[in-house]
């Protein structure tokens, strides 16, 4: 389970660091936080090549859900710009 722990630890550290950096830069838009989180999680998940097939399938499902959220946020932004 070493590979699972390493992956979870990496994602957790990245998300926490991102929060600290975005807070330090004075970022106040929730959309930006969310988009950066999703992009980072998707990249780390894709880079973890050595998961077994079952874990890979499960993480693909998580990636799909997160990507759906990403598209939703982008759509809201586009609608906001158009109106």
């Amino acid at each position: 389970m070493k590979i699972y722990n390493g992956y979870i630890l990496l994602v957790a550290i990245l998300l926490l660091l991102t929060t600290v950096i975005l807070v330090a830069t004075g970022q106040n838009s929730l959309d930006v936080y969310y988009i950066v989180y999703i992009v980072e999680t998707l990249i780390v998940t894709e880079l973890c090549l050595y998961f077994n097939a079952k874990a890979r399938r499960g993480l693909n499902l998580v990636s799909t859900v997160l990507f759906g959220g990403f598209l939703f946020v982008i759509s809201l932004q586009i609608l906001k710009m158009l109106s």
Partner: protein
Amino acid sequence: MLSRNLYTWSGFSLLVTGVLISLTSHFILLVTWLTALGIAMLILSLIFLVLGRTIPKISPEVSDLFLQTGVENIASLVEELGIKSKAVYLPASLTHNGPRALIPLRPNPSLPAITKPLPQRLIVRYGPHSDDVGLLVATAGTTAAAMLESTPGPTLIGLESTLSSLFRGILGVADGVKVVHREDYINIEINNPRLEQRVSWFHQCLGSPLASIAASIAAEVWDSPVVIKQEEYHKKSWSIEIKVLK
């Protein structure tokens, strides 16, 4: 089950905490960074919950129990028969049920070419001579090969990625694998192996568990019989030299 519970319980805890923090901070406290932190918790909770479902249902101790029982039985057989010859790892195309190890009953430096699948028996005749008889046994590599989704083509990268995926991702017994191929020899270096390596009569015949798995996979990838020529441990890595028999 304990590990599975740990991942699942961590996932549920993060899910509840994440929902509470994000809703409270977004609608009551109106703090953006705290809401974002709650969302990060929700993302992590999804990952925990998904990985918790992929943990094997039986504990490593039970797996070790079955492995040791099987190994002890084959070791007794090999030692009783006084077999000193090195095992030849055959691909699934030369056996009937996954890659297996053929242990010749007498030392045979020039093993006859095996062209057709051997019968699915313990004692098999593999050549034209009367003493071309050996034991056809399943090894850890037989089961490990069944865990792979597909077998790559006979390339260096294919073998390296397959072994890395198996040792690092599926079995979790090493940190990485490096493969070098020259002529008929394949050199495999396993970084930071976490499986106990024993030296006994049986292991001199079949090789260490890691070497045995590597040889079975190499035989399967190259679709050709292979033999473990030598193996040694140095500087936190296990070095295995495999010869491909044509």
